């Protein structure tokens, strides 16, 4: 078990550092979450839905765009947090030696890593909030319950940020992030009940989808935006919490091994 004295609120200062940097580039960063849902809704809603008609989900009949809209927020949460603690954190750690500089101060390595994960979840919140606004205006999200998507984005971001940080701790070179993205993130993006209900999968494949954290995040996102879901939210919240704690623990171990000689 990790010594609790290694954790303090000092981690907020590292989080703040990332915020200072982000403030310089937010104008570019905010375009993606603004445009991304529009593209998907246009492509799938207009181009695709004519081919497939309505989707049966959680006992309700939904138009295809209604079905995917909440999942788009969930996937944005995943991409934002995962990219932040993989590519962005790796650049800070490996190329910029930012963590080395921080380690010369009273900060502990654990605080730096926790701050990076918390920051990645913050970026997820930023993206989710913009998407929520766009999708809300288009009528795909019910309010005020839809506002719960904002804390949900942070919660989900923690889980994906943690596993990203774990990969950063073990990956030898930056190119090798292709591997977890291709083998883990992409299948998850496609098969987590995001673009079609998990119940459409063959029976043997369904438990695999249930093991994906994105499935649980998409479930919770649907519950909060359209009030329908397939499995108990308690299970989803429990699963994501366990996922976050498990990978944070692994990430801390991997980073300690990597950075402390």
């Amino acid at each position, binding site marked *: 078990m990790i010594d609790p004295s290694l954790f303090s609120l*000092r981690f907020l*200062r*590292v989080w*703040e*550092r990332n915020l*200072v*940097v982000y403030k*310089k580039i937010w104008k570019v960063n905010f375009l993606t979450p603004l445009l991304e849902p529009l593209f998907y809704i246009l492509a799938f809603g207009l181009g695709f839905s004519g081919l497939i008609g309505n989707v049966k989900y959680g006992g309700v009949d939904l138009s295809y765009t209604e079905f995917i809209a909440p999942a788009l927020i969930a996937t944005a949460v995943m991409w934002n947090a995962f990219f932040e603690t993989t590519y962005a954190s790796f650049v*800070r750690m490996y190329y*910029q*030696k*930012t963590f*080395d*500089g*921080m*380690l*010369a*101060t*009273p*900060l*502990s390595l654990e605080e730096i890593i926790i701050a990076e994960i918390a920051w990645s979840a913050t970026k997820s919140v930023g993206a989710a909030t913009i998407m929520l606004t766009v999708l809300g205006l288009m009528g795909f999200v019910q309010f005020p319950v839809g506002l719960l998507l904002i804390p949900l984005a942070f919660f989900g971001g923690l889980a994906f940020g943690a596993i990203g940080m774990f990969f950063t701790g073990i990956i030898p070179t930056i190119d090798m992030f292709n591997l977890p993205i291709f083998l883990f993130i992409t299948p998850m993006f496609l098969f987590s009940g995001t673009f079609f209900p998990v119940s459409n999968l063959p029976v043997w494949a369904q438990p695999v989808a249930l093991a994906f954290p994105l499935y649980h995040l998409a479930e919770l996102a649907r519950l909060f935006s359209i009030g329908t879901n397939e499995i108990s939210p308690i299970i989803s919240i429990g699963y994501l919490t366990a996922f976050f704690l498990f990978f944070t623990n692994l990430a801390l171990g991997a980073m300690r091994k990597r950075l*402390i*000689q």
Partner: protein
Amino acid sequence: MLYGFSPPTRGKLHIFGMNINTHFRRIKARIGVCQQENTLDPDLSVEQNLHVFAGYFLIPKKEAAERTRELLDFFALSHKKDSKVMELSGGMARRLILARSLINRPELLILDEPTTGLDPQSRHQVWEKLEELKKTGLTVVITTHYMEEASRLCDRLVIMDHGEILVDGSPEDLIDRYAGKNIIEIEGPDQALIEYVKEHAIEHDDLGRRLILYEPEGKGLNNTIRERFCNEKCIYRNSTLEDVFLRLTGRELRE
């Protein structure tokens, strides 16, 4: 190890009377570290580098702004405060790292090869700043491969090789003890000279093509050599710390 980067493998390490393993936060709050690598934050401006770093020490924002201003001033970087770190020259970057290591008003400053890779002007500027800091009573621990730097800055110095302390003393003391007062370097020494040296038991290093003699003060060796043995090229000079270092650690390459 001193600033808690690598945990001690054996033994105990105490700074300010506190164990680095158990009190790393309290120790690090009171030391300044200037790492050998450039660990400045390239995502931040010059000013922000100091300001954000102050945050890691939990220095209040107002106080941090004040110290940032003072340090930029002291290190002649005020005109660059909004520049990107990447745009700084080597000397300026080094000064900024030094400034950053002083943001918490440390009682102990640890410098790891602070002038490696700098041009002579920048190096002298860094030395002047370090001398000014020394005058204020700040304790500075410096590691360096430059003997000139060590002689100029150190009151007490330790020569280490393969993790062992070889000698310990003031620069002058070490030179006196291990390299005499003067050095005579003779290129292409002849047999007569070698015999003369052996006969008179003069301290020397025989490098084949080059013979180095270490002369204690006032032996008049200088003149004898000049008159009798200087065939090709002879250099007469004062002993330096570099001679001490090479004598103690040997001349073979360390790779």
